[in-house]
């Protein structure tokens, strides 16, 4: 007897369907694992008024999501804001993973707000509870800057004291500044050679104090130029600097009793563009070969290009800027360099007026104050680190506090 196995025609398709479903569910499950796992929301969201402002900023702080641990779970935070009593939350900003602070700069004084923070993950957002209400308020005084205010007041008081002291005719000792002593020599050289003087007031506008310092020195230089009857050439990169410089030179010529010798073409506008200006000034130097070049004001990458071109034509060069990064270039390429504060002291120094010299003396008080703070800070920090001692720790922290400016 032959036994034959009965075939099951439906079994194979059913198995295939089952296998397909298993694969399908596995792939769907895998997709959910990659993108759909929720993360814990941030907690303890606290909103507060930003201190010492016009009531236009509010701070939001929160406790990080417990899944914000450096893994790929939390990819950031989104901050939402609504008016008190409203459920209409709008997004006001984002924060990176690990950040638990946000400054909302778009709020109105006297209006109440609430916040909530969402932890962002690849599949969505996980919202915190709503924060406390905050009402931004206007503060009259920025107490964060009290240290700056007191230090500024001390320096200003010493400057004013020495100005009034000098007014009474008391003699003040001011050290010689080589770069300023050389101005006479430089202008004299231009006179002897019959060549012009080139004056560059930097590439910033009149809202930069360095440009103002340059223009005040221009007043003194122009007076000597007018006295010696030589030519001054001043290409500028800002229109307002052009008009101010013209007025300054015009007044200097009038002061020297030679108003008719003044010519508007002494100062000319070239371009606002940094390297276009450099190209024009370099061309003027090479063509006109000035005997003396002054670079007094705010300079950036163009400083060395200008100074080296001036050096190549054999001009006496006097430079001065308050850009620390450009000072080495000027020192290397120029004959004399006014370093930082010397640029600001120049006009007072050249005027030889007691009142102006008094302000320089007041500046020295500020320098002494800085030196004392630095010495006390260094000693107290060194002793507290090496041997401890509560007094030195307190002193070191105190010095650190008074010399740190908070916003």
């Amino acid at each position, binding site marked *: 007897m032959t036994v034959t196995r009965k075939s099951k025609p439906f079994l194979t398709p059913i198995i295939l369907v089952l296998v397909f479903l298993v694969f399908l569910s596995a792939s769907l499950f895998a997709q959910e694992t990659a993108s759909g796992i929720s993360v814990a929301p941030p907690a303890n969201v606290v909103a507060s008024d930003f201190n*010492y402002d*016009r009531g236009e900023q509010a701070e939001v702080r929160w406790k990080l999501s417990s899944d914000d641990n450096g893994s790929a779970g939390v990819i950031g935070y989104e901050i939402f804001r609504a008016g008190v009593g409203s459920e209409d939350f709008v997004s006001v900003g984002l924060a990176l993973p690990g950040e638990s602070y946000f400054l909302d700069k778009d709020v109105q004084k006297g209006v109440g707000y609430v916040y909530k923070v969402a932890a962002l993950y690849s599949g969505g957002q996980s919202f915190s509870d709503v924060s406390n209400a905050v009402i931004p308020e206007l503060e009259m*005084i*920025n107490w964060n800057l009290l240290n700056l*205010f007191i230090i500024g007041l001390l*320096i200003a008081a010493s*400057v*004013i004291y020495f*100005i009034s002291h000098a007014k009474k005719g008391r003699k003040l000792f001011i050290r010689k500044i080589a770069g300023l002593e050389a101005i006479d020599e430089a202008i004299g050289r231009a006179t002897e050679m019959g060549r012009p003087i080139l004056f560059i007031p930097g590439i910033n*506008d*009149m*809202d930069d*104090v360095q440009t*103002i310092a340059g*223009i*005040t020195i221009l*007043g003194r230089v122009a007076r000597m130029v007018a006295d010696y009857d030589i030519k001054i050439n001043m290409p500028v990169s*800002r*229109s*307002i600097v052009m*008009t101010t410089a013209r*007025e*300054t030179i*015009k*007044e200097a010529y*009038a*002061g020297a009793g030679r108003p008719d010798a003044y010519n508007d073409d002494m100062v*000319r*506008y070239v371009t606002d563009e*940094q390297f*276009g200006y*450099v*190209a024009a000034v370099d061309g003027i130097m090479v*063509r006109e070969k000035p005997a003396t070049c002054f670079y007094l004001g705010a300079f950036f990458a163009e400083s*060395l*290009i200008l100074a*080296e071109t001036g050096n190549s034509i054999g001009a006496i060069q006097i430079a001065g800027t*308050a850009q*620390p990064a450009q*000072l*080495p*270039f000027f*020192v290397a*390429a120029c004959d004399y360099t006014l*370093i*930082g*504060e*010397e*640029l*600001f*002291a120049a006009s*007072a120094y050249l*005027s030889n*007026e007691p*009142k*102006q010299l008094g*302000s320089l003396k007041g*500046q020295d008080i500020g*320098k002494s104050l*800085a030196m004392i703070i630095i010495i006390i800070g260094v000693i107290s920090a060194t002793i507290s680190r090496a041997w401890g001692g509560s007094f030195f720790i307190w002193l070191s922290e105190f010095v650190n506090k008074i010399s740190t400016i908070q916003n």
Partner: protein
Amino acid sequence: MKRQVPLLITFTVGAVLILSTFFPPVETMGEDFSLYFDIIAVFAFFLGGGNLIRVNSDAIAKKKKGWGFSMVTMAGFFIMLAAGLLKLWNPGGIRGDVAGTGSMFQLLYDWIFNPLGATMYALLAFYVASASYRAFRAKNRDATILLVAAFIILLGRTPLGVYATSWIPESFSILQIPNLAIWIMSSPNLAGQRAIMIGIALGVVSMSLRLILGVERTYLGVDSE
């Protein structure tokens, strides 16, 4: 009157800008004054442009020395002005963005203006070499210190500097050239820079006070009261 009005303006603006730092209610006034400056600067721009045209057209008309450069300046000025104002070749027409892709203004900017600026900037590399050559000559004690410091820093930032002193034991690692270079930059160099910064800050305070109080009047063309 000619002197008193500018002095009064200087005093008011200076005082308000100082107060706005410490008193939040005055902050808006400080911002307004900065805005006034921008408005004045816009009007002054026409003065600058007018001066550029006048000086260069005069040089061309009188065939002064270097008048060819004035021709190039004038051509550049007017071509750029026309390309910007009339929005020539602008894909969006007269209503499109002045700097739209393919516009004449943008093409001139990308293919002429930018490369010329970059060329001037590139000159800096050659000037650094020539200035360094002069600055680093050991003419006296100060220049020698500068030379030695520069040599250590340059060497410390190359693989040769690491290789040359890698044999020095870890306990004397400060003597390894890369560490010496870091120490020079972070201690003596930084201390010097900070000293200059403090001096600058004090100089700015002193000069600002002179201007605000009317002690410094050179910019008005007068030395004293």
